[in-house]
Structure formats: C-alpha cells, structure tokens
C-alpha cells in the first residue's frame, strides 16, 4: 500500500487549470521531494491531499483510504505561508493544535514539554508567540506539524528562517521520523537539500508532473555529461565545440557537454591551451540543472 496515491488528479479555478492529470505514488517510509517553479501547482496538490480542496477529477488515496476528515489526522502539514495565533502562549498553542489532531490534552502537554526541551524553547513555553524571534516561531511551527506523530508529514520549505544549528536539528528529526516509518514529502526550492535528503522526486510544472521517480535513477539516466575542471592558466578551451554550457565557480568550472561528446576531447584541448589542470572529474548533472532544463523546456 502506498502512503499517498494520486491518480489522474485535475483541479481548475474558473478558467485556470492549476493541476492537470497528475499521477503520483509515494511509497511508505520514503522521502519525496516535491519540486516545481512558483505557481506550478504544488500547493494545490498538497491542499487536495489534505482534503482542504476537492479535485475536479481523479482520485486521491491516503494510506489506502479516500481522502476525508479522518485521513487528515494521519497527515502533519507545515505550510509555506505560516503563522500562529500571535497572542497565545507557546505551550498552550502547541497543545491546542495537537488536541485538534486528536491527541488528549494531557498527552499533548507531555509531548509539548518534550519537544520544547529538544528545541531549547522550554524557558519560552509561557511566553506569547509574538514575543518570540522569527527562528523560534519557525521551530514552534515545526513542532505543531509533527507533535501528533502522523504517519505522513508534508513540509513546505521547513528550513526557511532557521540558522544552520536549528536546520540540522530539523533535518535530524526528519530522518529520525523516516527511520520510524513515517513518509515525508519535502517541498522546497533548495535543490541541495533535496539531493541530500530525498530518495525520490516529483517535479511539477504548469500543473503537470514532468518528472518523477527514484532520484538516483533519474540522475543516472542523464549519464555523466558534465565535467568539473579545476585549473590555472588560459581558459580558451572552454569554447570547445563539444561544450554546450559553462557554469563558473570560485574554484573551477562545470562544463555541460553536448550529447555524444567525448570528455577526452576537452581534456586534450585544455592541455594544448596550456592550462595547469589540478582536477578533472566526470559528473552526473546536478538536480539544479535537471530542474532548470525540465522547467525551461516545458
């Protein structure tokens, strides 16, 4: 049984089609990256899974059940645009949301104390939300999304506003939840996070799913078509006809090759041009490149 299964899901607002015939299966225990440019239909898709919106066509199953008020409690959701009652006290706010998700208030209170401890917010638990810094508010938001230990967690830009230490804590908790069998859907524009955390991705553009599947398989299907070169000296070899595009970094360059080009030709050209090569490596394309390519073409 899949954690989430969308079949041919379509949703329109007036004349705008936000989501069109999307198919998506998320295996239980997987970490899925839900990607796509702004306005691609990600939020609409998530809202349909949360039973906030009803699809015009198609079916959505959550843990094998058609979406309903009951399935909503099996999903924890951290929306991208988020806020909490500014004048409520931190702990009573967390308990309120956990109780809404079906926990008893005693149990919610016990867990709230645990989580506040873990995020080093204990001394703030009787303060009002409005008195907290942006980063602290983000942590409280995260707690409200996961406190009821839902089997499925949907996190939209969970790291925004967090410093590296807190971001690492959130990442550790996500991986911990995955190890305990939770399914995680991570929606973000930060590709390096997806590459580190996700085992599969779904890329949505203009309301359609343009790429989905196992992340490693997708990258392999592109082949090693990129060379990473670190060198000193002339860079005239970068105009070689086999190179399609060049991306410059502080330490070196990444050159994307034209289909069928031989990387050895580039190395030869570089040596002939008199460049001192310190590193020459064949790479799979980064997810960033795949994203740009897929969304630009569509």
């Amino acid at each position: 049984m899949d954690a989430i299964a969308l079949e041919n899901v379509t949703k329109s607002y007036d004349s705008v089609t936000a989501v069109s015939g999307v198919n998506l299966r998320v295996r239980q225990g997987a970490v899925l990256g839900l990607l796509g440019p702004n306005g691609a239909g990600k939020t609409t898709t998530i809202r349909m899974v949360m039973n906030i919106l009803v699809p015009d066509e198609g079916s959505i199953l959550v843990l094998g059940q058609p979406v309903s008020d009951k399935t909503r409690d099996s999903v924890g959701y951290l929306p991208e645009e988020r806020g909490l009652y500014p004048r409520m006290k931190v702990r009573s706010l967390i308990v309120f949301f956990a109780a809404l998700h079906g926990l008893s208030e005693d149990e919610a209170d016990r867990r709230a104390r645990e989580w506040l401890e873990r995020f080093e917010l204990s001394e703030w638990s009787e303060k009002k939300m409005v008195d907290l810094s942006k980063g602290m508010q983000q942590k409280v938001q995260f707690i409200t999304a996961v406190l009821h230990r839902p089997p499925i967690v949907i996190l939209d830009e969970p790291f925004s506003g967090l410093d590296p230490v807190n971001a690492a804590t959130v990442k550790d908790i996500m991986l911990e939840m995955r190890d305990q069998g939770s399914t995680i859907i991570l929606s973000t524009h930060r590709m390096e996070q997806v590459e580190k955390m996700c085992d599969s991705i779904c890329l949505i553009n203009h309301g359609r799913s343009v790429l989905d599947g196992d992340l490693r398989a997708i990258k392999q299907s592109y082949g090693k078509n990129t060379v990473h070169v670190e060198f000193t000296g002339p860079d005239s070899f970068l105009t070689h006809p086999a190179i399609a595009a060049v991306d410059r970094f502080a330490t070196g360059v990444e050159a994307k090759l034209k289909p069928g080009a031989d990387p050895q030709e580039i190395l030869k050209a570089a040596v002939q041009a008199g460049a001192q090569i310190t590193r020459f490596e064949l790479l799979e394309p980064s997810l960033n490149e795949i994203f740009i390519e897929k969304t630009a073409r569509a």
Partner: protein
Amino acid sequence: MRKIWLIIKREYVTRVKTKGFVIGTLIVPLIGIGFTSLIVFLVGHQSNQALRLAIIDNAGGLAPSVVGGLDAKLPSGQPMYVVTETIDRPASPSDIQDGLRARINSGALDAYLVIPKDLDKSAELHTKNPGAYAQFGPLTSAVNQAVVESRLNARGIHVDDVRDIVRSSDLQVIKVSKEGESVERGQTLGVAIALVILLYTSLLMYGIITMRSILEEKTTRTMEVLISAVDPFQLLAGKILGVAAVAFTQFAIWSVSLALLATYGAAMAAMTGAGAALAGIHVPGALLAYAGIYFFGGYFLYSSMFAAVGAACSNEQDAAQLQWIAMAPLVFTMVIYSLVLNDSSSRASVILSEIPFFAPVLMPLRVSLQVPPAWQIALSIGLLFLSIVVVIYCSAKIYRVGILMYGKRPTLPELVRWLRYS
C-alpha cells in the same frame, strides 16, 4: 464535535481573558452603578437643604400671603423654605439689601426675595445659587398666587371662589395590557428605545468581533495551519459559537449587575424619594426572554454574514469596505424602527417585524410596546431560524473559498460565484 468544542473553548478562553472584555464587562457596569449612585446621592443630599430666605415687601401686605404659599416639602419631610424675616415697606430698601447681601456672603442666608412696589413689575430673587431650579418653581407660584390674590382683592372678588373655578386638571396616561393596567410615566418608551439601541449595538459589535477574529487568523496565516487540522465548517461553527458564549457571559454579568442596580436604586429611592423614576421602570421577564431569543437568532444570522466578509478579505481596510454587506440590513432597521414605535400593530410594523433581517430588533420592540399575537411571534422566529440555516450555508461556502484567497478584495459577483464552487 470534539474539534468544534476545542475551537469554541480556545475562542472563549482567549477572548474572555483580554483586557477589552474585562473592561467592557466589569468596568462599564461598575461605572454605571457608580454614576447612578452618585447622582442619586447628590440629588438626595442637595434637596435635604432648606433654603433660608428673607423677603422685602415693597408693595406691602403681600409677604404673609407668599409665606403661606411656601408650603413645599423636602423629600425628608422638612419644609423646603425657611423664611428668616419679612421686611414690610422698608424706608431705605437699598440699605436693607446691602445688609442682606452681606449676610448671604457670610453664609447666614441663602437668598432674599424682593417684591416690587408696582406689582406689574417682576419680583426679584437674589441668590447665591441661581442654578438650583428645583427651588424656584414653588417660589414662583407662591409669588404669583400672592400677586393674583392681591389684584382680586382690589377688585372685590373672593379668592377661594376663583381658585375653585380655575383649578386645572391633569391628563394621566395609563397603559392597558393583558396583565392589567399601569400608570404610564414614559417608561414604556424608555424601555423600547433602550432595547432597540442595546440590540442594534450588540448585534453589530459581536458581528464585527467575529469578523475581526477570522480576519486575524487569515492575516497572521494561522488559517493555513488550522485548515490542515479541521474542516472549514467546523472552524466557522466553533468561531461563531465561541463568540456567542462570550456574548452570553457578558450579558449574564450585565443582567446581574442591572438587577443589583435596580435593587440598589429602589432602596435609594425608598430612602430619599429621588429615584422614583428609576423605580417606576418595570421590565417584564417575558420581554427579556424574547430579547434574548431574538438577540441570539440575530447574532447567528448577522455574525455568519460578518464571518463570510472576514474570510473573503485579506486585511482590515478591505474588510471595512466590504462589511456594508452585513451591516446594511442592520442599519436599515435603525432607519425604520420609529415606524414601529409610532404604531406597533400597523400593517407595515407587522410585515417589517416578520422579515428575518429586521425581526431581531423590531419584534422585541413590538413586544415591549404591545405584545403581538402569538402566531406573529412564532412565524417570525420560524422565518428567522430558517434564514439562519440558509445564510450559514451560503456563508460557509464563501468562507471555505475565502480563507484560501489572498490578494485583492473580491467583488460581490465574485462572492456569488464562490457559492457555486464545490
């Protein structure tokens, strides 16, 4: 149900704990009680002082007649005027006046009355406190009476005969109702107008509180998190019921303090006689019950409309512009209520009070004036509750769409279109 209950509880607890609620609920009646007591006390206190009066009679022979007419009593039963001396036709009036003036300034005397030599001229009252109107009325009539008597005597007409002939008569208004008859001293009108103002302001206030509360959830984006936990309809129901519970609490506290005020006022009235007007106001229990039913009926009707407005807007400014949709019928009620006040059983009054949007204010108003036939009350309650169901259904649809919409304020046609969304 549990989720609705949790939302009601949160709304109630956070709202009751606010400073605004405490001030509005506790301080306002306290201030009311304080002011009333102060006024009752001051009025009672002031009227317990007799006016010490000297009379200079330049015409001669009138002073005894004036003194005889000053038989008014204070609430305590003591005479209102103490005439310290009468000076008949003084040789040097200005010297006498200088002396009296000095005594007033030293506090030994409160006022002196000068009766002119020529009775066609005005008599003069020289007083330290020209604002104490209550003390002038009996004095004016006593002087008047003395002057008229002296003129009648001059023409050889017997005073008592004339007094018998010209004695005036009063018109006393008595209200007839099923309970019997009661003397009317303007209290029916007072209660009716107070009722209209109270119902109008409470419906408006609690409607706007509901709207603001939803708007706050939207502007702070708490809504995004909320709808991941509960159904929008549960959220709307919990919100409206939570604010209703706050309103109920506030009215309960006010009713108790009103009862205290009435008891206290009546006790003060019995002691001083000054609160007679207050004690004359009798609000029947049935009227309070109807006012309660129609308030809560009206609250559900209007607050669900205000809720839809709150959900449709993204900021206070837009809401201020769109709230006329919910406010218009309520404001219109205030324009037409005098129609009902003038003739509560006219055809226009009957029809207007059956219309659900006006009924919450107009029907209790009719009850306060003259209890309408039972079928009219039953019909208006029936229509009111039917339209509550319809309005809540429509508001819930607008709410469901609106809470996800940010950006420009929707137009009325857009709101209508939202009704058709699934």
